């Protein structure tokens, strides 16, 4: 039984029943007079389309999320409250972030401005923007070609965290759904079940349905590839798939856990993952992207797979049996079966990723080198983990992305390291072996030679970082993905 999409837009109720499920939120907004929100790229990379979505975290707490409306499918805003640049203030009564952008001369041509305003709007309601790099991160998904960013960053610093509440004041209530949402238009279906049993049943009945979580990748297939999916099964409202829980041996991360949630959680629990997520993508993307999505894409350049490979993570896959939802466990090293293919069978849903707890003596590192530091796809990513007894290596994990058809572990290098003493000489031998044991390709992100050099150097950099300590947090103003000594000149200001 199809129902219309219901949401609250700029504090006004909206009902949509005629748009195809793959209509993006941006397309719908602009065709309904909300032209303040702009299209700059339709690939979630420039941020001109940014809007703010009200949502709850896995803990149920309300949160405001800046998202890219250009790759968000319209049925995904069902049951939510949404704010656009036109809804938070007017020329006569501008919102404080809008006023700050005016006073700091944060707009020149003005075309990226609505997107920046909405990223600042989210920041206005955040309470955790306590470091300069977090402010940069807040707007790294918004490109400006005119200003050089300084005035925008000033407006952000002026207003971040100054709102009284986590959410903006609103009058129009949102009716949350508790039952499966089924939307149908132009012969295509969008189904968002509210529990796993329903989800697996729907998948069994419609095996061709495409599973989708945040749509940060699927949205590109719509806007850039022109794909129209006949059936989409959304897993983002399945309660067991969101959030992180402690287990006897470590953690269980719900597959539909968004990467902002994961970034916040991992800061203390799993710094290695946190460090990779810091440069994973923009705030807007991380609000919608999920860990399970990043794995199921099985892209050779996905950034979380090397980290999870180095952690011996396990994919937990659910299928429907007569006994109800049943889980099977696949080591991540067996999950990626080829270029963009996984061990998932039809009718199965990736529900969680289990990560064993790290031993206190573990030395870990996670690295990503891309053309641009923020908001870019890696040429090479790498993750390393050593379990040590004194200086002797008990166990080693050496994982790379961007060097083969899938994210890979280098078994030969792990063997070389195992039982060796963790020394500069060992690191050099391992680095040389790593470089010679891969056959990377040349593409626009880097030549094979560059990738081979990075494979080598990142392992050397890991040695530099972990000679004495187990882990280093990434400091502000650092130069590159490897943390070396503190910058020689101190604070440049």
């Amino acid at each position: 039984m199809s129902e219309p999409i219901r949401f609250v837009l700029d504090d006004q109720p909206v009902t949509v029943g005629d748009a195809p499920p793959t209509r993006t939120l941006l397309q719908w907004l602009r065709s309904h007079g909300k032209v303040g929100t702009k299209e700059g790229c339709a690939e979630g990379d420039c941020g001109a389309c940014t809007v703010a979505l009200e949502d709850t975290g896995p803990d149920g707490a309300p949160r405001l999320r800046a998202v890219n409306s250009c790759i968000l499918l319209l049925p995904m805003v069902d049951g939510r409250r949404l704010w656009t640049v036109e809804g938070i203030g007017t020329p006569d009564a501008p919102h404080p972030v809008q006023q700050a952008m005016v006073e700091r001369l944060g707009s020149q041509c003005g075309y990226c401005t609505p997107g920046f305003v909405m990223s600042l709007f989210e920041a206005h309601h955040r309470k955790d923007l306590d470091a300069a790099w977090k402010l940069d991160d807040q707007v790294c998904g918004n490109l400006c070609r005119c200003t050089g960013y300084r005035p925008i960053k000033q407006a952000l610093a002026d207003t971040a965290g100054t709102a009284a509440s986590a959410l903006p004041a609103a009058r129009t209530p949102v009716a949350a759904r508790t039952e499966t949402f089924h939307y149908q238009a132009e012969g295509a279906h969008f189904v968002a079940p509210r529990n796993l049993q329903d989800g697996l049943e729907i998948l069994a009945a419609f095996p061709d349905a495409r599973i989708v979580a945040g749509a940060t990748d699927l949205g590109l297939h719509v806007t850039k590839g022109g794909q129209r999916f006949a059936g989409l099964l959304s897993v983002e409202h399945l309660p067991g798939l969101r959030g992180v829980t402690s287990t006897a041996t470590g953690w269980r991360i719900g597959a539909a856990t968004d990467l902002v949630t994961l970034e916040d959680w991992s800061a203390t629990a799993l710094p290695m993952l946190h460090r990779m997520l810091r440069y994973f993508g923009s705030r807007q993307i991380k609000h919608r992207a999920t860990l399970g999505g990043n794995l199921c894409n099985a892209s050779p350049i996905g950034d979380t797979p090397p980290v999870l490979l180095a952690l011996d993570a396990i994919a937990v896959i659910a299928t429907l049996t007569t006994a109800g939802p049943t889980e099977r466990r696949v080591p991540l090293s067996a999950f990626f079966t080829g270029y963009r293919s996984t061990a998932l069978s039809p009718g199965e849903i990736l529900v969680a990723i289990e990560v064993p707890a790290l031993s206190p003596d573990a030395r870990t590192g996670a690295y990503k080198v891309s053309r641009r530091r923020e908001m870019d796809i890696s040429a090479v990513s790498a993750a390393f983990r050593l379990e040590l007894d004194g200086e002797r290596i008990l166990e080693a994990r050496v994982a790379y992305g961007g060097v083969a058809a899938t994210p890979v572990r280098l078994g030969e290098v792990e063997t070389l390291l195992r039982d060796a003493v963790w020394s500069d000489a060992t690191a050099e031998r391992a680095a040389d072996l790593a470089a010679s044991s891969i056959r990377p390709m040349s593409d626009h992100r880097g030549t094979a030679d560059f990738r081979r050099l990075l494979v080598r150097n990142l392992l050397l950099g890991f040695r530099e970082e972990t000679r004495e300590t187990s882990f280093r947090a990434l400091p502000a103003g650092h130069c590159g993905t490897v943390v070396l000594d503190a910058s020689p000149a101190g604070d440049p200001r």
Partner: protein
Amino acid sequence: MSDGTVRLPSGLPSPLHRSSPHESALRHVTGTARYTDDLPAPAGMLHAVFVASPHAHARILERDGDAARSMPGVRAVLFHDSVPGDNRVGPIVHDEPVLAEDEVHHVGMPVALVVADTREQAEAAAHAVRLTWAPLPAVLSIDAAIEAGSYLNDPHVIARGDAEAALAASACVVSGEVRSPGQDHFYLETHCARAIPEEGGAWKVWSSTQHPTEVQRMVARVLGIGAHMVSCEVPRLGGGFGGKESQAANVAALAALGAHATGRPVSVWLDRATDMASTGKRHPFLARYRAGFDADGRIRVLVAQLWSDGGFALDLSPAVMDRALFHLDNAYFVEALRFEGRCCRTNLPSNTAFRGFGGPQGALVVEAAMDDAAAALGMDPAAVRRASYYDGPARSVTPYGQVVPDTRIVAIHEGLAARADYAARRGDIEAEHAAARTALAAGTASPAQRWLRRGIALAPVKFGISFTNAPLNQAGAFVLVYADGTVQLNHGGIEMGQGLHTKMLAVCCDTLGVSLPRVRVLNTSTEKVPNTSATAASSGSDLNGQAVRDACVTLRQRMAPVAADLLGCAAEELRFAGDAVHAPSGRSMSFAELASTCWLRQVSLAATGFYRTPGIAYDKAAGRGTPFFYYAWGAAVFEVELNGLTGEHVLRRVDVLHDVGDSLIPSIDVGQVEGAVVQGVGWLTNEEVLFRPDGAVLTRGPSTYKIPAAGDVPEAFHVALLDHATQPGTIGGSKAVGEPPFVLSIGIIGALRHAVSGFAPRPGTPVTLGLPATPERLLGAVEAVRR
């Protein structure tokens, strides 16, 4: 310019020479500023997309639109033979087909236009247009073009003295090759135009263009009608940077063609991928140079040969090459020289104007020679530059014979070096490099000494201001005063983020003595100001500002006798200020009262203004003349830190001292300087236009084409405008600001080369660094000097 205005302390202050927000800022930040594609669609508006060539060079054997015509919602499928007028457009010569004729000349070239009720329908039908091809050999690089003798024009030569003899006599001779990269404009608003048929065979065109007159002219040409039948109106641009100077006309012509065929309004909007794949970019250049220096680092001679990649058509390529040649000297007096430049014809989109317009590509060559010479002489590169500046009458004549009248660059260099503490910081970095060498040799190096190096560099700019094509240096304005004392301001310039309207409002308010709320600036329209030049060459406020002032002075001269009569004084004794007109006696009347009285007394309250820059002339055959009205100057110090493990770098600090004359609006000018520097840093570091082997643009979106993001800008960024910098003969004593500071970004290359050199076991090791300086190229350079 003296017009008798005296600014009073009483009443509202003039907005001129005061910092203020952008005039549209409140509309920008609330999403109420409208761009072309935001305008309400006229009833029945259709959408058109073009079918792009998949070949870089091919003959079209067959074209068949029947299948596409039968698809849902399709209203027309058009080929070049549907063009009612002339299918060829172009800003200098008409060599660009609106729709391909017998051959295609680059991947992405429009071949057919599909018009449908919705954009989705037009896109679907575009796939159904059947085309068959006979591929032809393609020229896809400057090197291939030189090999094949494929050029767009004849060489332009500027020469002085006996360069070969001067090289032979030089204490230090350096030579090299510079390949400067292309650059996508990446304006956030892509190309867009709407053509609307009006009664009597007239046309209204809305366009995201820097040059509405060109759009008007080309639409008229394509439709085969007079310019008077076409009006072009522009609300504002979401960025232009040169990319919408000439090439917006092609997009508008397509819209007009679709509207002509269907009799309905038609919108053509290029999505990001189409925009990046089909439109021209900054010209890549190949330069080979030899330069001679004295033992004390002073440049004596420069011989340089330049080739640009013009793409398949002429567009503005010769003018870009001219400006590159005019900036091969950058800020340095060169006695003996031979400069030669020629534009290559390749099977790529026709490259076009981009902020700097060849100037940065030219300056990059002499700056490379400066760095080479400093390395060869073991000198501080800033000292080589300091020794080589234009300085005093004996060192004041440019390669093309124009005299540089002042030596601001010396004061700027000294002022900036002091402000940025350049000498001490360079000393610290040199000491760090030396300490790292010692520690590495002794096996005691810290991780930072193994893998991190800082670098610092100072780069100057001298930038010639004016269109080098003299007739373009003209502008018009049209100012209307209403009987209630409010004002409508029209001028020929385009607001594209540079703050032109903010400056024009300030000039208008200053001249009429009224406050900002009384004045409204209107959309730029060919109906209000005809025969305009492009808003380009940094000339927007120079030219239009004079025209606005001229119109306002005319209005004041008409209104003054009325006020003089009422206030009992002579007209020339009146002061217009603070929304009022003041007599020496102390008596005054409000501007509104004066306006209504003028109406009652039948005085015209609408006036045009006009300006032409005096004295611009250049003889290209002789390589001599006065192509510029004046020069803008500036200098910057860049400090970087480079990671030798990964090739990543951070921009730690940038200090700029820049000459904008007496700034019309200082806050706007600082924003222009900062934005230009960051855009230039993008050009030289992480932005890279990549092509597939078949000539198709590979970088078609921000996922693959990386302009600077918020975290890439300098951690510390100090921009100062030169004080006491009045420029004679310009509006308010100001100078152009859009392009000159872009050239300052070259300093990042010197800083990166300095950092790379710190990894060499021996000081003074030459550094070769390809451009753009991506992590891959930087890591390669580090690896090369380590050995």
